[in-house]
């Protein structure tokens, strides 16, 4: 009888082996007085995975630094992959809350993921600290169980527009950003502040999220002083490359996703000169940022960006909140109240506190992309202190106007 390995046997073996190799058993819970359970909703598969994996690195770095102990309580960390779609996020949020009984959720990444679970987390009374920038989550549709220590979509664009108008003295700008809510809200914020300072938005371009070739859009950029781009993910890389290749020389300004420090290793010289405004900057000279960057360099050999730092700061907020309640997390309303009242003076992104809607008030950094010692760096040129989501506008008036959208504010003819 021959012992020939048939194709079928081979395939079955390979599949089984692959399955076994990827199988990661969940770490057994350490038998000890109830640990604090921290759940992470992030995206580890699909097009958003890069940011999602950086999020996990950020929170894990913080947990390691604290030796997985917050306010004397052991922290059990559970990470869940939403797959980057709303239905998946709902299921994974249920998994974390109903099965794993987490005390607090950090994440998710994208606005549509957060919007899919916002009613659910309020109903389940589980605090949620997300990076998702959807404005209305802390504006017109606030959720009492939601905190955002990063920024709303437009929070970095208001100061960027202020800088572009006052310091760069730009007058006419074209905006270009992906055709989805985050893009609209970013560009809307930029337009409002820029035009309030005497500038003028000439045109707004909205390429689809997946646009292999920006040429048709680049061709429309002419007769202006500058360009404001609001791209996210890996799109800023391709956009700036094609922008330079098209011979365009207008200065470019952008927000946190368009000039993130984590993109620096992928940018080429074409990105030199880019101005970006970000709630986190790699070169911030504070003890906690030094510690954070050193840990990231050591553990993952990368310079952290906005996603990592965002989750690291979220971890700090959770820890500080837990310290306020004396390590107690049974009463979620109390825990939430404590976290909302957290004021931190030293985080990797500078001092932070929260407004009554649960959004951060913190520093925003305008950086200029330069080359130093053969390496691209974002050099901070101006810091805007204590920026709120309403910028300098009156909160009531701001909330009365509709949320920034594709057509709001309208173009002035």
């Amino acid at each position: 009888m021959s012992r020939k390995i048939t194709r079928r046997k081979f395939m079955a073996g390979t599949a089984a082996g692959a399955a076994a190799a990827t199988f990661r058993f969940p770490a057994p819970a350490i038998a000890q007085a109830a640990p604090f359970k921290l759940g992470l909703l992030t995206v580890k598969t699909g097009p958003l995975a890069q940011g999602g994996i950086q999020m996990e690195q950020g929170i894990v770095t913080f947990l390691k630094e604290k030796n997985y102990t917050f306010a004397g309580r052991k922290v059990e960390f559970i990470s869940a992959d939403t797959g980057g779609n709303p239905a998946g996020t709902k299921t994974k949020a249920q998994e974390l809350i109903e099965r794993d009984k987490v005390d607090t959720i950090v994440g998710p990444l994208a606005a549509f993921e957060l919007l899919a679970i916002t009613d659910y987390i309020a109903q389940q009374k589980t605090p949620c600290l997300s990076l998702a920038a959807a404005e209305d989550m802390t504006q017109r549709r606030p959720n009492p169980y939601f905190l955002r220590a990063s920024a709303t979509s437009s929070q970095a664009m208001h100061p960027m527009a202020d800088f572009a108008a006052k310091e760069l003295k730009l007058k006419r700008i074209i905006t270009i950003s992906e055709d989805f809510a985050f893009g609209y809200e970013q560009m809307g914020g930029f337009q409002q502040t820029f035009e309030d300072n005497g500038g003028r938005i000439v045109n707004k371009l909205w390429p689809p999220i997946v646009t292999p070739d920006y040429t048709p859009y680049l061709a429309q950029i002419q007769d202006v002083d500058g360009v404001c781009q609001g791209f996210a993910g890996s799109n800023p890389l391709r956009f700036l490359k094609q922008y330079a290749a098209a011979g365009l020389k207008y200065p470019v300004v952008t927000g946190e996703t368009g000039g993130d420090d984590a993109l620096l290793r992928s940018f080429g010289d074409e990105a030199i000169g880019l101005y970006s405004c970000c709630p986190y900057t790699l070169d911030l000279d504070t003890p906690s940022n030094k510690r954070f960057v050193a840990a990231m360099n050591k553990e993952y050999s990368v310079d952290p960006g906005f996603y990592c730092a965002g989750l690291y700061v979220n971890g700090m907020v959770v820890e500080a909140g837990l310290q306020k309640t004396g390590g107690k997390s049974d009463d979620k309303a109390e825990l939430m109240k404590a976290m909302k009242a957290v004021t931190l003076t030293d985080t990797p992104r500078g001092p932070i506190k929260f407004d009554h809607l649960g959004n951060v008030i913190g520093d925003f950094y305008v950086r200029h992309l330069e080359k130093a010692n053969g390496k691209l760096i974002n050099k901070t040129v101006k810091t805007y202190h204590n920026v709120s989501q309403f910028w300098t506008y009156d909160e009531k008036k701001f909330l009365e106007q509709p949320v920034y959208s594709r057509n709001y504010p309208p173009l002035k003819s």
Partner: protein
Amino acid sequence: MTIRFLALVVAFAALATVPYWMPGVYYINVASQILFYAIFALGLNVLVGYAGLVSLGHAGLFGVAAYAAGYMLQLGFGHPLAILVALVIGVASMAIYAALSLRSTGIGFIMITLALGEILWGLAYRWISLTGGDNGLSLKSRPELFGFSMSDVNTFYYASLVIFMLSLAAMTVFVRSPLGAALMGTRDQPRRMNALGYHVWAIRFYACLFSGLLTSISAILFVYYTQFISPQTLALTASAEVLLMVISGGAGTLLGPIVGATLVVVVKTVVSGFIERWNFLLGAIFVAIVILMPEGLVPGTARLWRLAWRQRERGASVTPGSAEAKP
């Protein structure tokens, strides 16, 4: 026949008691998801399995029904009316789909349904006043059913189960009906059916409507389950996913789509908690299915079972000592 009957009874008993033996609320929710995705897969199977028409745009239909329900509720209409309108709009959209895509079969049909699905996705994305764009629509509540609130996990599960059983029964009746037989005829021998006097186009059209009805039912369950609907639900990947459920389970069988839906949902929700590269695992499983059981899990397993059974019988009938006599 008796074994089959016994298995069905056991399966039904297991399904009916899920809330009692599942280890937690989360898994009951997963079971609910399996049920409504199974209905979706059953709906697609009407076309893929029994009519031989592969649709890559079913997520678009699914989305239309889900958005219709969500939008009606947002306008302040009650649940019964919202559900009814969603069903009507879902089936009506399928009728339009069918009218456009039944002009061809094979690749042509795939491409037309694909295009229609993408159009609906684009509408969901861009018609912001109606759909909320990519911020989606949220549903405030689930309906009450005979005094039971569907917000309760068990109630929702049982409601899904009842609807699932009804859908499965409807499917069984449909397949065994003359219309079902005629539909399979149009799949295998459309010309001959035509020559025999059957109206091939009409038969296919009715099948499409039935498929649209099941799809709409599952979409309504889905939208009540997630209480949220956004354009991602209509994306091409969602259409492909449900098609994979049908094909992996076994197209043209009653149980195949259910097994396929179970496989996909379990890997996507439960297994992904343990395995980081769950996409890879799902891919590997599909490759394995294609190589080992190209007809799908259910018919494939049945084939292997019969093979093993026959060999055992043959082994039993061969008297000892006569083995060498075999060629």
